[in-house]
Protein backbone atom coordinates (compact mmCIF):
# COMPACT_ATOMS: atom_id res chain seq x y z
CA UNK A 1 0.00 0.00 0.00
CA UNK A 2 1.19 3.47 -0.81
CA UNK A 3 0.34 5.95 1.93
CA UNK A 4 -1.24 9.22 0.80
CA UNK A 5 0.08 12.63 1.89
CA UNK A 6 -2.23 12.84 4.87
CA UNK A 7 -1.15 9.50 6.28
CA UNK A 8 2.50 10.22 5.52
CA UNK A 9 2.13 13.48 7.42
CA UNK A 10 0.53 11.65 10.30
CA UNK A 11 3.31 9.06 10.26
CA UNK A 12 5.84 11.89 10.41
CA UNK A 13 4.08 13.44 13.39
CA UNK A 14 3.98 10.13 15.28
CA UNK A 15 7.61 9.42 14.49
CA UNK A 16 8.77 12.91 15.47
CA UNK A 17 6.85 12.77 18.71
CA UNK A 18 8.10 9.30 19.63
CA UNK A 19 11.72 9.93 18.69
CA UNK A 20 11.84 13.20 20.59
CA UNK A 21 9.67 12.58 23.60
CA UNK A 22 10.36 8.93 24.36
CA UNK A 23 13.77 9.67 25.78
CA UNK A 24 16.14 7.06 27.06
CA UNK A 25 15.69 8.52 30.52
CA UNK A 26 11.92 8.07 30.36
CA UNK A 27 12.14 4.55 28.98
CA UNK A 28 14.65 3.54 31.64
CA UNK A 29 12.41 4.96 34.35
CA UNK A 30 9.38 3.07 33.07
CA UNK A 31 11.44 -0.08 33.02
CA UNK A 32 12.84 0.39 36.51
CA UNK A 33 9.74 1.51 38.36
CA UNK A 34 7.02 -0.11 36.30
CA UNK A 35 4.90 2.94 37.12
CA UNK A 36 2.58 4.78 34.78
CA UNK A 37 4.11 8.07 33.61
CA UNK A 38 1.45 10.75 33.76
CA UNK A 39 3.60 13.44 32.17
CA UNK A 40 4.09 11.66 28.88
CA UNK A 41 0.46 10.57 28.89
CA UNK A 42 -0.65 14.19 29.34
CA UNK A 43 1.65 15.32 26.56
CA UNK A 44 0.25 12.64 24.24
CA UNK A 45 -3.24 13.77 25.18
CA UNK A 46 -2.43 17.41 24.52
CA UNK A 47 -1.47 16.62 20.94
CA UNK A 48 -4.59 14.50 20.46
CA UNK A 49 -3.06 11.02 20.22
CA UNK A 50 -5.59 9.54 22.64
CA UNK A 51 -8.44 10.51 20.34
CA UNK A 52 -7.04 9.61 16.94
CA UNK A 53 -9.79 7.17 16.06
CA UNK A 54 -12.60 8.64 18.16
CA UNK A 55 -15.08 10.62 16.02
CA UNK A 56 -14.94 14.39 16.08
CA UNK A 57 -18.41 14.72 17.58
CA UNK A 58 -17.11 12.86 20.63
CA UNK A 59 -14.00 14.96 21.10
CA UNK A 60 -11.61 12.92 18.96
CA UNK A 61 -9.79 13.66 15.73
CA UNK A 62 -11.95 11.40 13.61
CA UNK A 63 -9.08 9.48 12.09
CA UNK A 64 -9.40 6.13 10.34
CA UNK A 65 -8.12 2.67 11.20
CA UNK A 66 -5.07 3.17 9.03
CA UNK A 67 -4.07 6.23 11.07
CA UNK A 68 -4.63 4.25 14.23
CA UNK A 69 -2.37 1.45 12.98
CA UNK A 70 0.31 3.96 12.00
CA UNK A 71 0.13 5.55 15.44
CA UNK A 72 0.65 2.28 17.28
CA UNK A 73 3.37 1.11 14.89
CA UNK A 74 5.37 4.33 15.11
CA UNK A 75 5.13 4.57 18.89
CA UNK A 76 6.01 0.88 19.33
CA UNK A 77 9.03 1.30 17.06
CA UNK A 78 10.51 3.45 19.84
CA UNK A 79 8.66 2.12 22.89
CA UNK A 80 6.18 -0.77 22.85
CA UNK A 81 4.80 0.16 26.26
CA UNK A 82 4.16 3.78 25.31
CA UNK A 83 2.29 2.62 22.23
CA UNK A 84 -0.20 1.13 24.71
CA UNK A 85 -0.64 4.52 26.36
CA UNK A 86 -2.08 5.99 23.19
CA UNK A 87 -3.72 2.77 22.07
CA UNK A 88 -6.23 1.98 24.79
CA UNK A 89 -8.60 4.91 24.33
CA UNK A 90 -8.66 4.32 20.60
CA UNK A 91 -9.35 0.62 20.83
CA UNK A 92 -10.50 -1.42 23.81
CA UNK A 93 -11.32 1.61 25.95
CA UNK A 94 -13.33 3.74 23.56
CA UNK A 95 -14.27 0.97 21.13
CA UNK A 96 -17.14 -0.72 23.00
CA UNK A 97 -19.01 2.57 23.47
CA UNK A 98 -18.59 3.55 19.86
CA UNK A 99 -19.90 0.14 18.94
CA UNK A 100 -22.93 -0.17 21.20
CA UNK A 101 -23.29 2.93 23.35
CA UNK A 102 -26.32 5.19 23.30
CA UNK A 103 -25.81 8.78 22.20
CA UNK A 104 -26.01 9.80 25.84
CA UNK A 105 -23.37 7.28 26.90
CA UNK A 106 -21.06 8.31 24.08
CA UNK A 107 -21.41 11.99 24.99
CA UNK A 108 -20.75 11.22 28.61
CA UNK A 109 -17.77 8.90 28.37
CA UNK A 110 -15.96 9.44 25.07
CA UNK A 111 -14.88 13.11 25.12
CA UNK A 112 -12.87 12.87 28.37
CA UNK A 113 -11.29 9.65 27.11
CA UNK A 114 -10.45 11.21 23.74
CA UNK A 115 -8.84 14.16 25.49
CA UNK A 116 -6.94 11.93 27.89
CA UNK A 117 -8.71 13.42 30.91
CA UNK A 118 -10.06 10.04 31.90
CA UNK A 119 -8.78 6.54 31.38
CA UNK A 120 -11.09 3.76 30.31
CA UNK A 121 -9.85 0.17 30.26
CA UNK A 122 -11.25 -3.18 29.17
CA UNK A 123 -11.87 -6.16 31.44
CA UNK A 124 -12.86 -9.42 29.83
CA UNK A 125 -10.33 -11.98 31.03
CA UNK A 126 -10.98 -13.90 34.24
CA UNK A 127 -8.84 -16.37 36.15
CA UNK A 128 -10.79 -19.19 34.52
CA UNK A 129 -11.70 -17.48 31.26
CA UNK A 130 -8.83 -16.41 29.05
CA UNK A 131 -9.00 -17.47 25.45
CA UNK A 132 -12.35 -19.04 26.31
CA UNK A 133 -14.09 -15.80 27.12
CA UNK A 134 -17.40 -17.66 27.09
CA UNK A 135 -16.41 -19.06 30.47
CA UNK A 136 -17.12 -15.72 32.14
CA UNK A 137 -18.36 -16.19 35.71
CA UNK A 138 -18.64 -12.56 36.82
CA UNK A 139 -22.32 -12.01 37.62
CA UNK A 140 -24.53 -9.04 36.95
CA UNK A 141 -27.82 -9.43 38.78
CA UNK A 142 -30.52 -7.18 37.50
CA UNK A 143 -32.54 -5.41 40.19
CA UNK A 144 -36.15 -4.44 40.00
CA UNK A 145 -35.35 -0.83 39.16
CA UNK A 146 -33.18 -2.00 36.23
CA UNK A 147 -29.87 -1.41 38.03
CA UNK A 148 -27.33 -4.23 38.48
CA UNK A 149 -25.24 -5.76 41.25
CA UNK A 150 -21.82 -6.93 40.00
CA UNK A 151 -19.77 -9.69 41.60
CA UNK A 152 -16.62 -11.34 40.29
CA UNK A 153 -12.93 -11.02 39.50
CA UNK A 154 -11.26 -9.85 36.30
CA UNK A 155 -7.59 -10.63 35.83
CA UNK A 156 -4.59 -9.20 33.93
CA UNK A 157 -6.42 -5.91 33.40
CA UNK A 158 -3.98 -3.56 31.73
CA UNK A 159 -4.22 -0.04 33.02
CA UNK A 160 -6.67 -0.86 35.82
CA UNK A 161 -4.70 0.99 38.53
CA UNK A 162 -5.05 4.28 36.60
CA UNK A 163 -8.53 3.71 35.23
CA UNK A 164 -11.50 5.94 35.96
CA UNK A 165 -13.85 3.58 34.19
CA UNK A 166 -13.65 0.02 33.06
CA UNK A 167 -15.62 -1.92 30.46
CA UNK A 168 -16.67 -5.09 32.26
CA UNK A 169 -18.30 -8.21 30.88
CA UNK A 170 -20.59 -10.11 33.22
CA UNK A 171 -23.13 -12.86 32.97
CA UNK A 172 -26.61 -11.36 33.07
CA UNK A 173 -28.39 -14.61 32.47
CA UNK A 174 -26.69 -17.65 34.00
CA UNK A 175 -29.29 -19.88 32.45
CA UNK A 176 -27.76 -19.27 29.05
CA UNK A 177 -24.69 -21.34 28.22
CA UNK A 178 -21.25 -20.22 27.07
CA UNK A 179 -20.97 -16.91 25.32
CA UNK A 180 -24.65 -16.17 25.50
CA UNK A 181 -26.29 -14.14 28.25
CA UNK A 182 -23.31 -11.86 28.82
CA UNK A 183 -23.76 -8.11 29.28
CA UNK A 184 -21.29 -5.24 28.79
CA UNK A 185 -21.08 -2.55 31.48
CA UNK A 186 -19.20 0.70 32.13
CA UNK A 187 -17.94 0.28 35.64
CA UNK A 188 -17.06 3.41 37.59
CA UNK A 189 -13.88 2.35 39.35
CA UNK A 190 -14.58 4.62 42.30
CA UNK A 191 -17.78 2.82 43.30
CA UNK A 192 -17.95 1.04 46.65
CA UNK A 193 -17.11 -2.64 46.31
CA UNK A 194 -14.52 -2.16 43.55
CA UNK A 195 -10.98 -3.08 44.56
CA UNK A 196 -7.71 -3.80 42.82
CA UNK A 197 -5.25 -6.65 43.08
CA UNK A 198 -1.52 -6.10 43.38
CA UNK A 199 0.19 -4.96 40.15
CA UNK A 200 1.72 -7.98 38.41
CA UNK A 201 5.46 -8.31 37.85
CA UNK A 202 5.63 -8.66 34.12
CA UNK A 203 8.31 -9.83 31.72
CA UNK A 204 7.91 -6.73 29.57
CA UNK A 205 5.59 -3.81 28.80
CA UNK A 206 6.76 -2.36 32.08
CA UNK A 207 5.39 1.05 32.91
CA UNK A 208 1.78 0.19 32.17
CA UNK A 209 0.60 -1.55 35.33
CA UNK A 210 -1.66 -4.56 35.10
CA UNK A 211 -3.70 -5.98 37.95
CA UNK A 212 -6.91 -7.75 38.90
CA UNK A 213 -10.20 -5.92 39.29
CA UNK A 214 -12.40 -7.32 42.05
CA UNK A 215 -16.09 -6.53 42.30
CA UNK A 216 -17.98 -7.27 45.52
CA UNK A 217 -21.63 -6.34 45.45
CA UNK A 218 -21.00 -3.33 43.30
CA UNK A 219 -24.21 -1.53 42.60
CA UNK A 220 -24.19 0.04 39.13
CA UNK A 221 -27.02 2.12 37.70
CA UNK A 222 -29.18 1.01 34.84
CA UNK A 223 -27.37 3.20 32.32
CA UNK A 224 -24.09 1.43 33.09
CA UNK A 225 -25.29 -1.29 30.75
CA UNK A 226 -24.00 -0.72 27.21
CA UNK A 227 -26.06 -2.20 24.41
CA UNK A 228 -28.33 -5.17 24.86
CA UNK A 229 -27.91 -7.04 28.10
CA UNK A 230 -27.25 -10.44 26.51
CA UNK A 231 -25.18 -9.38 23.51
CA UNK A 232 -22.01 -8.42 25.36
CA UNK A 233 -19.92 -11.26 24.04
CA UNK A 234 -20.56 -10.18 20.46
CA UNK A 235 -19.50 -6.64 21.31
CA UNK A 236 -16.35 -7.95 22.95
CA UNK A 237 -15.40 -9.95 19.90
CA UNK A 238 -16.04 -7.04 17.53
CA UNK A 239 -14.01 -4.69 19.75
CA UNK A 240 -11.18 -7.19 19.86
CA UNK A 241 -11.18 -7.23 16.05
CA UNK A 242 -10.10 -3.62 16.05
CA UNK A 243 -7.84 -4.19 19.05
CA UNK A 244 -6.13 -6.97 17.17
CA UNK A 245 -5.28 -4.57 14.42
CA UNK A 246 -3.62 -2.31 16.96
CA UNK A 247 -1.62 -5.11 18.51
CA UNK A 248 -0.61 -6.31 15.05
CA UNK A 249 0.65 -2.80 14.40
CA UNK A 250 2.53 -2.97 17.68
CA UNK A 251 4.23 -6.12 16.40
CA UNK A 252 5.23 -4.32 13.22
CA UNK A 253 6.64 -1.43 15.23
CA UNK A 254 8.68 -3.73 17.45
CA UNK A 255 10.01 -5.59 14.41
CA UNK A 256 10.92 -2.33 12.70
CA UNK A 257 12.69 -1.06 15.81
CA UNK A 258 14.65 -4.32 16.07
CA UNK A 259 15.58 -4.20 12.41
CA UNK A 260 16.88 -0.64 12.58
CA UNK A 261 18.89 -1.30 15.74
CA UNK A 262 20.37 -4.41 14.15
CA UNK A 263 21.38 -2.69 10.93
CA UNK A 264 23.09 0.05 12.90
CA UNK A 265 24.87 -2.41 15.15
CA UNK A 266 25.92 -4.74 12.32
CA UNK A 267 27.58 -1.84 10.54
CA UNK A 268 29.40 -0.63 13.65
CA UNK A 269 30.43 -3.86 15.29
CA UNK A 270 33.68 -5.27 14.00
CA UNK A 271 34.81 -8.85 14.37
CA UNK A 272 37.59 -10.62 12.50
CA UNK A 273 38.65 -7.22 11.21
CA UNK A 274 35.46 -6.18 9.48
CA UNK A 275 31.95 -5.04 10.29
CA UNK A 276 29.79 -8.06 11.03
CA UNK A 277 27.31 -6.79 8.41
CA UNK A 278 29.83 -8.02 5.87
CA UNK A 279 29.25 -11.61 6.94
CA UNK A 280 26.51 -13.29 4.98
CA UNK A 281 25.23 -15.03 8.09
CA UNK A 282 24.38 -11.61 9.48
CA UNK A 283 23.31 -9.82 6.33
CA UNK A 284 20.92 -12.62 5.39
CA UNK A 285 19.40 -12.46 8.85
CA UNK A 286 18.81 -8.76 8.23
CA UNK A 287 17.20 -9.58 4.89
CA UNK A 288 14.86 -12.08 6.56
CA UNK A 289 13.99 -9.56 9.27
CA UNK A 290 13.19 -6.87 6.74
CA UNK A 291 11.08 -9.24 4.68
CA UNK A 292 8.98 -10.43 7.60
CA UNK A 293 8.57 -6.90 8.93
CA UNK A 294 7.39 -5.55 5.63
CA UNK A 295 5.04 -8.47 5.03
CA UNK A 296 3.50 -7.92 8.46
CA UNK A 297 3.15 -4.20 7.80
CA UNK A 298 1.33 -4.77 4.52
CA UNK A 299 -1.06 -7.22 6.19
CA UNK A 300 -1.82 -4.66 8.87
CA UNK A 301 -2.31 -1.78 6.46
CA UNK A 302 -4.49 -3.96 4.26
CA UNK A 303 -6.70 -5.00 7.17
CA UNK A 304 -7.00 -1.36 8.18
CA UNK A 305 -7.93 -0.42 4.64
CA UNK A 306 -10.67 -3.07 4.62
CA UNK A 307 -12.08 -1.79 7.89
CA UNK A 308 -11.98 1.79 6.66
CA UNK A 309 -13.82 0.74 3.54
CA UNK A 310 -16.50 -0.83 5.71
CA UNK A 311 -15.70 -4.31 4.45
CA UNK A 312 -15.68 -7.43 6.62
CA UNK A 313 -12.19 -7.44 8.09
CA UNK A 314 -12.42 -10.14 10.78
CA UNK A 315 -10.25 -12.62 8.96
CA UNK A 316 -7.81 -9.99 7.74
CA UNK A 317 -7.36 -8.66 11.29
CA UNK A 318 -6.72 -12.13 12.65
CA UNK A 319 -4.25 -12.92 9.89
CA UNK A 320 -2.46 -9.62 10.49
CA UNK A 321 -2.36 -10.12 14.27
CA UNK A 322 -1.16 -13.72 13.96
CA UNK A 323 1.52 -12.95 11.42
CA UNK A 324 2.77 -9.68 12.90
CA UNK A 325 2.93 -11.06 16.44
CA UNK A 326 4.97 -14.04 15.33
CA UNK A 327 7.12 -11.89 13.04
CA UNK A 328 7.89 -9.52 15.90
CA UNK A 329 9.24 -12.45 17.88
CA UNK A 330 11.24 -13.91 15.00
CA UNK A 331 12.74 -10.52 14.28
CA UNK A 332 13.45 -9.76 17.95
CA UNK A 333 15.14 -13.15 18.30
CA UNK A 334 17.41 -12.41 15.36
CA UNK A 335 18.08 -8.88 16.61
CA UNK A 336 19.34 -10.24 19.92
CA UNK A 337 21.35 -12.86 18.03
CA UNK A 338 23.03 -10.21 15.89
CA UNK A 339 23.88 -8.21 18.99
CA UNK A 340 25.43 -11.30 20.58
CA UNK A 341 26.23 -10.92 24.26
CA UNK A 342 25.35 -7.24 24.13
CA UNK A 343 21.83 -8.14 23.08
CA UNK A 344 21.40 -9.95 26.38
CA UNK A 345 22.28 -6.84 28.36
CA UNK A 346 19.62 -4.34 29.28
CA UNK A 347 21.69 -1.38 28.04
CA UNK A 348 20.74 -2.36 24.53
CA UNK A 349 17.33 -1.61 23.11
CA UNK A 350 16.90 -5.05 21.58
CA UNK A 351 16.90 -6.72 24.97
CA UNK A 352 13.80 -4.74 25.90
CA UNK A 353 12.19 -5.26 22.50
CA UNK A 354 12.76 -9.00 22.89
CA UNK A 355 10.86 -9.12 26.16
CA UNK A 356 8.16 -6.72 25.00
CA UNK A 357 7.61 -8.71 21.83
CA UNK A 358 6.76 -11.82 23.79
CA UNK A 359 3.34 -10.55 24.89
CA UNK A 360 2.16 -9.69 21.40
CA UNK A 361 1.20 -13.27 20.43
CA UNK A 362 -0.56 -13.62 23.79
CA UNK A 363 -2.78 -10.64 24.46
CA UNK A 364 -5.93 -9.66 22.61
CA UNK A 365 -6.23 -13.18 21.30
CA UNK A 366 -3.31 -15.58 21.33
CA UNK A 367 -1.79 -16.76 18.09
CA UNK A 368 -3.64 -19.99 18.64
CA UNK A 369 -6.96 -18.19 18.95
CA UNK A 370 -6.15 -16.38 15.70
CA UNK A 371 -5.46 -19.74 14.08
CA UNK A 372 -8.84 -20.92 15.34
CA UNK A 373 -10.55 -17.83 13.94
CA UNK A 374 -8.81 -18.11 10.59
CA UNK A 375 -9.31 -21.84 10.21
CA UNK A 376 -12.87 -21.55 11.43
CA UNK A 377 -13.64 -19.10 8.64
CA UNK A 378 -11.86 -21.25 6.09
CA UNK A 379 -13.79 -24.33 7.02
CA UNK A 380 -17.24 -22.94 7.66
Amino acid at each position, binding site marked *: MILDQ*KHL*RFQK*LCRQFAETEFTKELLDRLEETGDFDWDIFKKMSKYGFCGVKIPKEYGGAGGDYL*SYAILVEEFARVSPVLSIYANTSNSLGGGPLMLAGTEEQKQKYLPPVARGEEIMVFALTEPGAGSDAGGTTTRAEEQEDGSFILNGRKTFISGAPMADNCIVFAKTDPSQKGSRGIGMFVLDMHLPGVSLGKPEHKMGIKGYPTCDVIMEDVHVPKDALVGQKDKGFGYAMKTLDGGRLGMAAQGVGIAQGCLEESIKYAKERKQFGRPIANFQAISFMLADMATETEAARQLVYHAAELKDAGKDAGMACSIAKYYAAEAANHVAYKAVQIHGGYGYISDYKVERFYRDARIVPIYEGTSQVQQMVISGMLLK
Partner: protein
Amino acid sequence: MKIYVCVKQVPDTSGVVAVNPDGTMNRAKMPTIINPDDLNAMEAALQLKESEGATVVAVSMGPPQAGEMMRELLAMGADEAVLISGREFGGSDTFATSQIIAGGIHHMGIGKEDLVLCGRQAIDGDTAQVGPQIAEKLHLPQVTYATEIKKDGDTYTVKRALEDGYMTIQVKSPCLITCIKELNEPRYMSVEGVFEADEKPLTILDYEALKDERLIETDTIGLNGSPTNIFRSFNPPVKGQGEMLQGTEKEMAAALAEKLSAKHVI
Protein backbone atom coordinates in the same frame (compact mmCIF):
# COMPACT_ATOMS: atom_id res chain seq x y z
CA MET B 1 -4.06 41.09 13.74
CA LYS B 2 -2.33 39.15 11.02
CA ILE B 3 0.99 37.46 11.66
CA TYR B 4 3.09 36.51 8.66
CA VAL B 5 5.60 33.79 9.45
CA CYS B 6 8.37 33.40 6.89
CA VAL B 7 9.53 29.84 6.54
CA LYS B 8 12.09 28.02 4.44
CA GLN B 9 12.34 24.40 3.46
CA VAL B 10 15.96 23.33 3.82
CA PRO B 11 17.99 20.18 3.27
CA ASP B 12 18.69 18.46 6.56
CA THR B 13 22.41 19.11 6.82
CA SER B 14 22.66 17.28 10.12
CA GLY B 15 22.51 13.91 8.40
CA VAL B 16 24.29 12.46 5.42
CA VAL B 17 24.93 15.01 2.72
CA ALA B 18 24.50 14.05 -0.91
CA VAL B 19 27.01 15.71 -3.20
CA ASN B 20 26.86 16.09 -7.00
CA PRO B 21 29.89 15.20 -9.12
CA ASP B 22 30.62 18.94 -9.51
CA GLY B 23 30.86 19.35 -5.75
CA THR B 24 27.53 21.12 -5.22
CA MET B 25 24.96 19.74 -2.85
CA ASN B 26 22.40 17.40 -4.33
CA ARG B 27 19.29 18.85 -2.73
CA ALA B 28 16.98 16.43 -4.49
CA LYS B 29 18.60 13.49 -2.75
CA MET B 30 18.53 14.93 0.72
CA PRO B 31 15.65 14.82 3.17
CA THR B 32 14.10 18.23 3.66
CA ILE B 33 13.00 19.79 6.90
CA ILE B 34 11.41 23.01 8.03
CA ASN B 35 14.24 25.34 8.95
CA PRO B 36 14.66 25.04 12.73
CA ASP B 37 14.69 28.76 13.62
CA ASP B 38 11.56 29.22 11.50
CA LEU B 39 9.75 26.76 13.74
CA ASN B 40 10.52 29.03 16.67
CA ALA B 41 8.97 31.90 14.72
CA MET B 42 5.94 29.73 14.00
CA GLU B 43 5.61 28.82 17.67
CA ALA B 44 5.83 32.48 18.68
CA ALA B 45 3.05 33.29 16.22
CA LEU B 46 0.83 30.50 17.49
CA GLN B 47 1.35 31.60 21.09
CA LEU B 48 0.36 35.15 20.16
CA LYS B 49 -2.64 33.76 18.33
CA GLU B 50 -3.69 31.87 21.44
CA SER B 51 -3.23 34.79 23.82
CA GLU B 52 -4.27 37.71 21.62
CA GLY B 53 -6.20 36.25 18.75
CA ALA B 54 -4.61 36.51 15.32
CA THR B 55 -4.62 35.05 11.85
CA VAL B 56 -1.37 33.22 11.26
CA VAL B 57 -0.20 33.12 7.65
CA ALA B 58 2.79 30.94 6.82
CA VAL B 59 4.76 32.32 3.86
CA SER B 60 7.50 30.55 2.00
CA MET B 61 9.34 30.84 -1.27
CA GLY B 62 10.35 27.58 -2.84
CA PRO B 63 9.62 24.90 -5.41
CA PRO B 64 6.13 23.37 -5.67
CA GLN B 65 7.35 20.43 -3.57
CA ALA B 66 7.41 22.78 -0.60
CA GLY B 67 3.61 22.51 -0.63
CA GLU B 68 3.68 19.58 1.77
CA MET B 69 5.80 21.62 4.19
CA MET B 70 3.10 24.29 4.05
CA ARG B 71 0.53 21.63 4.94
CA GLU B 72 2.65 20.71 7.96
CA LEU B 73 2.61 24.34 9.08
CA LEU B 74 -1.16 24.35 8.70
CA ALA B 75 -1.19 21.15 10.78
CA MET B 76 0.78 22.98 13.47
CA GLY B 77 -1.91 25.62 13.61
CA ALA B 78 -1.36 28.19 10.86
CA ASP B 79 -4.63 29.46 9.41
CA GLU B 80 -3.40 30.04 5.88
CA ALA B 81 -0.34 29.18 3.87
CA VAL B 82 1.13 31.02 0.92
CA LEU B 83 3.83 29.51 -1.25
CA ILE B 84 5.64 31.89 -3.55
CA SER B 85 6.81 29.67 -6.34
CA GLY B 86 8.02 30.24 -9.85
CA ARG B 87 10.86 29.30 -12.13
CA GLU B 88 11.72 32.99 -12.41
CA PHE B 89 12.44 33.13 -8.67
CA GLY B 90 14.83 30.17 -8.63
CA GLY B 91 18.46 30.72 -7.69
CA SER B 92 17.75 34.01 -5.92
CA ASP B 93 20.29 35.26 -3.39
CA THR B 94 19.18 36.92 -0.16
CA PHE B 95 18.68 40.34 -1.74
CA ALA B 96 16.50 38.89 -4.47
CA THR B 97 14.66 36.52 -2.14
CA SER B 98 13.82 39.22 0.35
CA GLN B 99 12.34 41.55 -2.24
CA ILE B 100 10.20 38.72 -3.61
CA ILE B 101 8.92 37.72 -0.16
CA ALA B 102 8.45 41.36 0.80
CA GLY B 103 6.57 41.78 -2.48
CA GLY B 104 4.39 38.79 -1.62
CA ILE B 105 3.57 40.15 1.83
CA HIS B 106 2.92 43.61 0.40
CA HIS B 107 0.65 41.99 -2.19
CA MET B 108 -1.38 40.39 0.62
CA GLY B 109 -1.31 43.60 2.61
CA ILE B 110 0.25 44.54 5.91
CA GLY B 111 -1.79 46.58 8.32
CA LYS B 112 -1.07 48.63 11.39
CA GLU B 113 -1.52 45.78 13.82
CA ASP B 114 0.33 43.20 11.79
CA LEU B 115 3.57 41.45 12.48
CA VAL B 116 6.16 39.58 10.43
CA LEU B 117 8.09 36.83 12.17
CA CYS B 118 11.11 35.04 10.70
CA GLY B 119 13.68 32.58 11.90
CA ARG B 120 17.06 34.20 12.46
CA GLN B 121 18.75 32.17 9.73
CA ALA B 122 18.39 29.07 7.59
CA ILE B 123 20.74 26.16 8.11
CA ASP B 124 21.56 25.77 4.42
CA GLY B 125 23.04 29.25 4.11
CA ASP B 126 23.38 30.52 7.67
CA THR B 127 23.23 34.10 6.39
CA ALA B 128 20.58 35.68 8.66
CA GLN B 129 20.01 38.25 5.92
CA VAL B 130 16.55 37.64 4.54
CA GLY B 131 14.68 38.76 7.68
CA PRO B 132 16.29 42.21 7.96
CA GLN B 133 16.11 42.69 4.19
CA ILE B 134 12.38 41.96 4.14
CA ALA B 135 12.02 44.53 6.93
CA GLU B 136 13.93 47.11 4.91
CA LYS B 137 11.87 46.50 1.77
CA LEU B 138 8.64 46.77 3.74
CA HIS B 139 9.93 49.80 5.71
CA LEU B 140 9.31 48.02 8.99
CA PRO B 141 11.39 48.37 12.12
CA GLN B 142 13.18 45.12 12.93
CA VAL B 143 14.41 43.27 15.96
CA THR B 144 16.66 40.26 15.35
CA TYR B 145 17.77 37.43 17.65
CA ALA B 146 14.62 37.54 19.78
CA THR B 147 14.67 35.40 22.92
CA GLU B 148 11.50 36.85 24.41
CA ILE B 149 8.54 38.68 22.89
CA LYS B 150 5.93 40.50 24.96
CA LYS B 151 2.96 42.26 23.45
CA ASP B 152 1.11 45.14 25.03
CA GLY B 153 -1.37 46.71 22.64
CA ASP B 154 0.61 47.75 19.59
CA THR B 155 3.91 47.70 21.48
CA TYR B 156 6.28 44.77 21.44
CA THR B 157 8.98 44.46 24.03
CA VAL B 158 11.65 42.13 22.74
CA LYS B 159 14.69 40.70 24.41
CA ARG B 160 17.43 40.55 21.82
CA ALA B 161 20.40 38.25 22.39
CA LEU B 162 23.90 39.66 22.22
CA GLU B 163 27.07 37.58 22.47
CA ASP B 164 27.75 38.98 25.93
CA GLY B 165 24.23 39.53 27.21
CA TYR B 166 21.09 40.99 25.79
CA MET B 167 19.29 44.23 25.09
CA THR B 168 15.61 44.95 25.56
CA ILE B 169 14.01 46.78 22.68
CA GLN B 170 10.56 48.28 22.27
CA VAL B 171 8.96 48.59 18.86
CA LYS B 172 5.45 49.23 17.67
CA SER B 173 3.56 47.20 15.12
CA PRO B 174 3.83 46.71 12.25
CA CYS B 175 7.32 45.35 12.68
CA LEU B 176 9.50 42.36 11.89
CA ILE B 177 11.12 40.11 14.48
CA THR B 178 13.58 37.28 13.86
CA CYS B 179 13.54 34.42 16.32
CA ILE B 180 16.15 32.08 17.76
CA LYS B 181 15.82 28.74 19.46
CA GLU B 182 16.06 30.18 22.97
CA LEU B 183 12.71 31.92 22.36
CA ASN B 184 10.54 28.85 22.78
CA GLU B 185 10.06 25.15 22.23
CA PRO B 186 8.24 24.64 18.94
CA ARG B 187 5.20 22.41 19.12
CA TYR B 188 4.56 19.42 16.93
CA MET B 189 1.74 19.23 14.47
CA SER B 190 -1.40 18.14 16.28
CA VAL B 191 -3.34 15.02 15.40
CA GLU B 192 -6.39 17.07 14.54
CA GLY B 193 -4.26 19.55 12.64
CA VAL B 194 -2.80 16.77 10.50
CA PHE B 195 -6.24 15.59 9.48
CA GLU B 196 -7.55 19.11 8.83
CA ALA B 197 -4.53 20.57 7.05
CA ASP B 198 -5.81 19.61 3.62
CA GLU B 199 -8.97 21.65 4.10
CA LYS B 200 -7.17 24.88 5.02
CA PRO B 201 -6.26 27.38 2.29
CA LEU B 202 -2.91 27.00 0.54
CA THR B 203 -2.31 29.71 -2.04
CA ILE B 204 0.41 29.67 -4.67
CA LEU B 205 1.74 33.06 -5.74
CA ASP B 206 3.65 32.73 -9.00
CA TYR B 207 5.59 35.18 -11.11
CA GLU B 208 2.46 36.31 -12.95
CA ALA B 209 0.77 37.15 -9.66
CA LEU B 210 3.69 39.22 -8.40
CA LYS B 211 5.40 40.71 -11.43
CA ASP B 212 3.61 44.04 -11.14
CA GLU B 213 4.27 44.29 -7.41
CA ARG B 214 6.22 47.52 -6.96
CA LEU B 215 8.63 46.11 -4.40
CA ILE B 216 9.91 43.57 -6.91
CA GLU B 217 12.39 44.70 -9.53
CA THR B 218 12.17 42.01 -12.14
CA ASP B 219 15.81 42.51 -13.17
CA THR B 220 17.23 41.67 -9.74
CA ILE B 221 15.48 38.37 -9.07
CA GLY B 222 16.39 34.79 -9.85
CA LEU B 223 19.80 33.34 -10.51
CA ASN B 224 20.77 35.88 -13.15
CA GLY B 225 19.39 38.94 -11.43
CA SER B 226 20.84 38.31 -7.98
CA PRO B 227 23.52 40.81 -6.96
CA THR B 228 25.79 38.08 -5.63
CA ASN B 229 26.92 35.10 -7.67
CA ILE B 230 28.81 31.99 -6.84
CA PHE B 231 32.25 32.47 -8.32
CA ARG B 232 33.43 29.00 -7.41
CA SER B 233 32.53 26.30 -4.93
CA PHE B 234 34.93 23.69 -3.69
CA ASN B 235 35.57 21.08 -1.05
CA PRO B 236 38.08 21.85 1.63
CA PRO B 237 41.03 19.46 1.36
CA VAL B 238 40.67 16.33 3.42
CA LYS B 239 43.14 16.18 6.23
CA GLY B 240 45.01 12.90 6.33
CA GLN B 241 44.04 10.52 9.09
CA GLY B 242 46.34 10.70 12.07
CA GLU B 243 47.55 7.95 14.32
CA MET B 244 45.26 5.65 16.26
CA LEU B 245 46.86 4.87 19.59
CA GLN B 246 46.64 1.28 20.78
CA GLY B 247 46.47 -0.63 24.05
CA THR B 248 44.67 -0.23 27.32
CA GLU B 249 43.41 3.13 28.53
CA LYS B 250 46.59 3.57 30.53
CA GLU B 251 48.83 2.63 27.62
CA MET B 252 47.05 4.94 25.20
CA ALA B 253 47.24 7.82 27.67
CA ALA B 254 50.92 7.23 28.25
CA ALA B 255 51.64 7.04 24.52
CA LEU B 256 49.76 10.27 23.98
CA ALA B 257 51.61 12.08 26.76
CA GLU B 258 54.92 10.95 25.28
CA LYS B 259 54.01 12.21 21.84
CA LEU B 260 52.76 15.54 23.16
CA SER B 261 55.94 15.91 25.12
CA ALA B 262 58.07 15.10 22.06
CA LYS B 263 56.19 17.80 20.14
CA HIS B 264 56.73 20.23 23.03
CA VAL B 265 52.99 20.66 23.41
CA ILE B 266 53.39 19.92 27.10
